[in-house]
């Protein structure tokens, strides 16, 4: 039957197409890793020779160490703030019976949807006025703003995924609102909160635009240092940094997968929330 022959060819063409797309997705990441082991000091691919000198150079370089430390010093608190505020927002819009809930949601999610460059040049004078410019707190606040929607989306999805009657049941059992939240709601949405928090951290970790405006040489983060180095010196040191960051990101992803295994309904919504990371460079 000619139908099967042509459909088999179509299936084959489909598979090839998909394969090419997958290769396209992984390509740049795969180029950088071997490059970091090159023994030559110019960027080339395939890399010439094998050497760990770039990694060794990193170990002794305080600029990179400080930048990495700064990324954590800013990212972790920003993630915590995003988690606290994002969870509150999600609880209010999902359980609150608010009339303007949809408008509220649109406003809460806006920092994720609108270009970060605008927020950056807007926060600059605000931080200047508050005396927080170029300090850690200013950067933390800025990163928290863009992390908040991620936590919100993640926790909203988690709240939607489980039975609201559970909270009613808790109340008939004698738990007031605070206690029914602590004992019933919180354990159920724990995964959503955690996932959102990790995403907020990852977004902060990769955020360039805000750091360009809100940090200085003392508080600059990894992306900002990479950016400066890229424009000035192009050596495989960048590749080594990139590989390390890559490894770290994989670890975060793995952590997320491990936690996510015990949650129902989380994978797609979390994957969706993952869809908002780090693009707003």
């Amino acid at each position: 039957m000619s139908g099967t022959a042509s459909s088999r060819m179509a299936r084959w063409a489909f598979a090839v197409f998909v394969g090419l797309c997958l290769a396209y997705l992984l390509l740049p990441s795969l180029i950088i890793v071997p490059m970091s082991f090159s023994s030559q000091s110019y960027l080339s691919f395939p890399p010439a020779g094998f050497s760990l000198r770039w990694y060794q150079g990193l170990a002794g370089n305080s600029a990179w160490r400080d930048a990495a430390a700064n990324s954590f010093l800013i990212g972790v608190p920003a993630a915590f703030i995003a988690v606290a505020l994002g969870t509150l927002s999600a609880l209010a819009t999902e359980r609150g019976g608010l009339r303007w809930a949809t408008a509220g949601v649109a406003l809460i999610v806006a920092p994720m949807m609108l270009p970060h460059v605008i927020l950056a040049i807007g926060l600059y004078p605000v931080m200047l006025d508050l005396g927080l410019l170029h300090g850690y707190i200013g950067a933390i606040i800025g990163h928290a703003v863009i992390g908040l929607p991620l936590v919100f989306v993640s926790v909203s999805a988690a709240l939607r995924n489980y039975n609201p009657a559970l909270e009613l049941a808790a109340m008939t059992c004698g738990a007031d609102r605070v206690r029914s939240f602590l004992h019933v709601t919180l354990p159920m949405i724990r995964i959503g909160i955690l996932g959102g928090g990790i995403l907020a951290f990852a977004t902060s970790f990769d955020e360039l635009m805000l750091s360009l405006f809100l940090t200085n040489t003392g508080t600059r983060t990894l992306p900002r240092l990479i950016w400066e180095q890229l424009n000035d010196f192009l050596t495989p040191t960048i590749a080594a940094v990139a590989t390390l960051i890559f490894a770290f990101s994989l670890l975060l992803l793995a952590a997320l997968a491990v936690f996510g295994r015990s949650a129902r309904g989380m994978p797609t919504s979390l994957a969706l929330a993952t869809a908002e990371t780090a693009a707003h460079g």
Partner: protein
Amino acid sequence: MARPGDAAGRRPWTLHRGNALLLVPPGLFLLVFFFWPLLRVMARSVIEPEFGFENYARVFGSGPYVRVLWQTIETAGIVTVLCLILAYPLAYAVARAEGTRLKLLMIFVLVPLWTSVVIRSYGWMIVFQRQGVLNDLLLSLGLTETRLTLLPGSLAVHVGMVHIMLPFMILPLIASMRGIDHSLLRAADVLGAPPHRRFLEVFLPLSLPGVSAGVALVFMTSLGFFITPALLGGPQLMMAAVLIEEKANVELDWPFASALATTLLLITTALYLVYLRLTRGASPLLGR
């Protein structure tokens, strides 16, 4: 236990009483650190250096700035369309996969997402530079005779941006495709629809919420995108965010940068509102 004092006359207890208070801390936070900065940018564009729309006259005047804005929109559009074309079959394959194959495919999609954008753009720089991978390949295959200057260039920007944006198109598509009720497809089979009709008339329409979410996300993100166009585009293909950063950080022309930023903001906000209206607030991007 009911207390004797709880007589009639007090208003009935409501479940949602006080829930709006939960929004106060995040609301205040966003008000001060998101909406207020946006207002300041918009204000600055019409207050400095003098009152008036002088900055906007410059933006829309005879200079290159309108072209930049136009290029931004155009590039964002092209990137979105290309992403959709590539992502749809890929998402279809992932949505239908199960078990280990599913996990493997998801790794392919998620790993680039979790790799820093700066790093991936850097990777494309290596591919497109004169001494780079692509030129090596073209030379060795005999397709060119000299090394091409592709970097900076619009091809590099497009390829790079599509690469970065692809997962953002794939994930909403996967989510919506996996949500399609299989019994609907089986019903179509039973009712006699050939595979391509089943796809066109049942599957495709049901996947549209994912399509619109992906399109909205990719388009709006591309409009404001900085890193990849900055590294791969240069003066040839300049996009709005790159221009704004340059004007603000390098030339320190804040009022003008504010005007450009406000224009970009208005365009993006208009699209956001259109998207909200179309989906009536029910979108996976909003968590609902």
